[in-house]
């Protein structure tokens, strides 16, 4: 397989590939390289952090007996643990061998968007995404619908027979499966009835509150019957539009933000009606069009792709978790804290004057100890003082430890052009290329930082 194709593949289903790994793959056929990607991602490896001190939180029996003060304390700890989980997730992305699965998790987290402040439920949700990332869409949706975090986020917990809450049913169709215009307000009402009584226990297990569940006949998308939530999901999956809706998201994320209808149709034909996600991804990665020039370097990296991509070459240890959160906030993508149920908008929406400037400075901030003087916005919940707290210490450095071992091993032996080709996916602007050629006196580390600072590095 050609080097360029391998690099493209790994920049989309992962966070880049190192030179030695390319050499080990370049003798193989495309089919073998792709098969290897899938086999590495075969088994989902749940991401868990130590939550022993919070066990009382999820004990079905003792939870009721906790005093108000203790419960408050647990909630506070839980919020802190979510920040720890954010760091742990990023470390996972930096170190994982399962690039494909983890990239899919990141993708699904922005399709089935959810946010919660209960760490056990957050962790469970995240691992449900991991488990089904390459599975079947039907199983995936049914699992997501039963997740406590989702149940709270979209008010399905409040959805009861006497007074249905339509929030989950609406977003299930509008944002998770069909898209606007492919169902009626009546369908939403009927679907909401089918999900009534879906609830969970403190330990995160799903259970049906029989008395709150509406067992009557529902009429949904032209079918009528005694539907429950699972049946609703099955009927949604019968709509070809569902396959098209998901395939379009997959295409924009993994192939190109501008959709080629012919390729999309081809994907829909593969995905429908079995909804096997692995087969769909395999089809894309084995196609010729995935590797066409128009798709290479066509996508603007998400903040996460940027941050993780840098760290797969120079791993970093953040002494202060807060500073890692600061970077995510300033660039507009804090994992586990999506802005709303529609998720991050991606591609060009990552970019404005301020974020682009910051993103182009990021490599020197991380790797060269450059001072940053950009304050993050305060939180809604902050006091007046805290809201503006950062602005008093404008210029500051990040407290990060850099590990150059991988870089030394992988890049020191390469010449300038080789380093450049390994890092930059997009075509390089002619003038910028001329500029890069003038940087002959820089040592390789500095050259790396410079390369990561050109606009082309923002693309993958």
């Amino acid at each position, binding site marked *: 397989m050609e080097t360029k194709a391998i690099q493209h593949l790994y920049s989309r289903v992962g966070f880049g590939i190192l030179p030695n790994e390319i050499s080990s793959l370049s003798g193989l056929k495309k089919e073998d390289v792709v098969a290897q990607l899938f086999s590495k991602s075969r088994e989902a490896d749940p991401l868990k952090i130590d939550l022993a001190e919070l066990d009382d939180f999820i004990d079905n029996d003792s939870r009721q007996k906790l005093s108000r003060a203790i419960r408050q304390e647990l909630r506070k700890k839980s919020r802190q643990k979510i920040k720890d989980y954010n760091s742990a997730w990023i470390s996972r992305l930096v170190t994982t061998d399962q690039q494909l699965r983890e990239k899919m998790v990141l993708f699904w987290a922005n399709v089935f968007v959810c946010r919660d402040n209960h760490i056990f439920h957050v962790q469970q949700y995240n691992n449900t995404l991991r488990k089904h990332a390459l599975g079947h869409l039907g199983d995936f949706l049914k699992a997501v619908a039963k997740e406590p975090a989702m149940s709270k986020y979209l008010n399905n917990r409040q959805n009861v027979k006497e007074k249905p809450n339509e929030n989950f049913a*609406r977003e299930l169709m509008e*944002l998770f499966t069909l898209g606007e215009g492919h169902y009626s307000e009546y369908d939403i009402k009927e679907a909401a009835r089918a999900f009534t009584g879906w609830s969970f226990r403190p330990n995160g297990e799903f259970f049906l509150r029989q008395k709150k569940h509406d067992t009557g006949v529902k009429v949904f998308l032209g079918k009528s019957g005694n539907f429950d939530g699972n049946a609703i999901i099955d009927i949604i999956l019968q709509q070809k539009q569902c396959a098209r809706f998901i395939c379009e998201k997959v295409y924009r994320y993994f192939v190109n*933000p*501008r959709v080629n209808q012919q390729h999309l149709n081809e994907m829909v034909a593969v995905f429908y009606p079995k909804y096997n996600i692995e087969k769909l991804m395999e089809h894309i990665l084995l196609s010729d069009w995935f590797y066409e020039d128009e798709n290479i*370097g*066509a*996508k*603007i990296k998400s903040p996460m792709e940027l941050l993780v991509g840098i760290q797969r070459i120079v791993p970093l240890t953040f002494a202060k978790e807060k500073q890692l959160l600061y970077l995510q*906030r*300033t660039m*507009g993508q804090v994992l586990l804290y999506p*802005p*709303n*149920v*529609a998720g991050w*908008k991606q*591609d*060009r*929406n990552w*970019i*404005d*004057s*301020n*974020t*682009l*400037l910051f993103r*182009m*400075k990021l490599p020197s901030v991380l790797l060269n100890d450059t001072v940053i*003087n*950009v*304050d*993050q*916005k*305060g939180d*809604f*919940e*902050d*006091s*007046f*003082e*805290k*809201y*503006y707290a950062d*602005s008093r210490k*404008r210029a500051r450095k990040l407290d990060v430890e850099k590990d150059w071992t991988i870089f030394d091993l992988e890049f020191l032996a390469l010449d300038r052009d080789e380093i450049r080709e390994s890092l930059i996916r*997009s*075509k390089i*602007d*002619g*003038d*910028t290329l*001329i*500029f890069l050629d003038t940087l002959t006196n820089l040592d390789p580390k500095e050259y790396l930082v*410079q390369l990561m*600072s*050109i*606009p*082309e590095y*923002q*693309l993958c």
Partner: protein
Amino acid sequence: MKRREFIQRSSLASGTLLVPNFLKAVESSVLGGANHKRVVVIQLSGGNDGLNTLIPYTNDIYYRSRPQLAVKSNDLIKITDTLGFHSQLKPLMRLYDKGYLAILNNVGYPNPDRSHFRSTDIWHTASGSDEYLTSGWMGRYIESHGQKPYNAIEIDDSLSLMLKGENMNGIATKNAKLLHNNMNTPYFKKILNQQTDQHLSEHNLGYLYKTMIEARSSAKYIYETSKTNPSKKQYPDNPFGKQLKTTAEFINSRLDTQMYYVSMGGFDTHANQVNTQSRLLHIYSDAVETFVQDLDDNGTLENTLILTFSEFGRRVQENASRGTDHGAANNVFLIGKNLKKPGFFNSGPNLNDLDANNDLKYDIDFRSIYATILSNWLGVEQKSILRTSFDTLDFV
């Protein structure tokens, strides 16, 4: 093309970013055309408690709902038979007396959302509560009018959704010099100075270069136009005062900016609200009064409209922690010299008629306020920016 526009565009195009002083004078006195007007939007972030800001001091329900928090009728500034300002709002009262202040009560939208994030998004994008838009109303404004990042400025270091368009965005800065310096490190200079225009047609790569180049020229324009105009006013020494001072310096330098956005934090008063809110209202009204005077002294108040909102009001009923939780409709302040109906635009909240959640109902859709600002104040067509036409109100 109008003469003023021609002067501005040609001077920008030729790289002479400073509009000579005599032209500035000409512009503001003779050619005060519609699009020379500007709006400053201030968000009281976190959700200001409107009921303790403008107090319905004769209302029993108010006093019954808030045994700990209600402001006593002898501890406020009475304005009408039923409503009074919080005692820390004396500066605002002075603006009210001058006829510079209009108060719109019960502003909100259908099916209110009680999440800070979501409700802020709704206000920023001018969407309904069931729509998720990717652009803000200010962003869409500059996309159809002006087309330069500096046409809308947020006084902060990062840009909010309100100023993001589909294909172009406003710019954020609370320190023009710093932004300018950041854009002019030797490295960026080298990368960008060499750019010829050929790559600008490339899809995303072109977009990145274009964004960088525009960002740099906007930063230069903002810095060079405003650096000679430091404010002579003494602003309250706090970060919000500083934001407004910077805003005044930009406005008084006659930047070609029609929209400014400032966010003031701290209003999420779930616990021990009384002292916190008093301080905040003091900081807010004190700084705003100085700001208004500063503009007035420089002849720019005439063309400036200041809108203050919160993403939501708070519950009528106080909570158990001497605070209030997230509510719905709230009051909005409009400040300016050209108000058609200064004072109270409509009557205060009806506490006898609350929504299903026992929160205040709205009478005025906030998008009607935007619609009025766009069509009556800035003189542009509202529909392309708000996507549907909303009734305009008779405040400007």
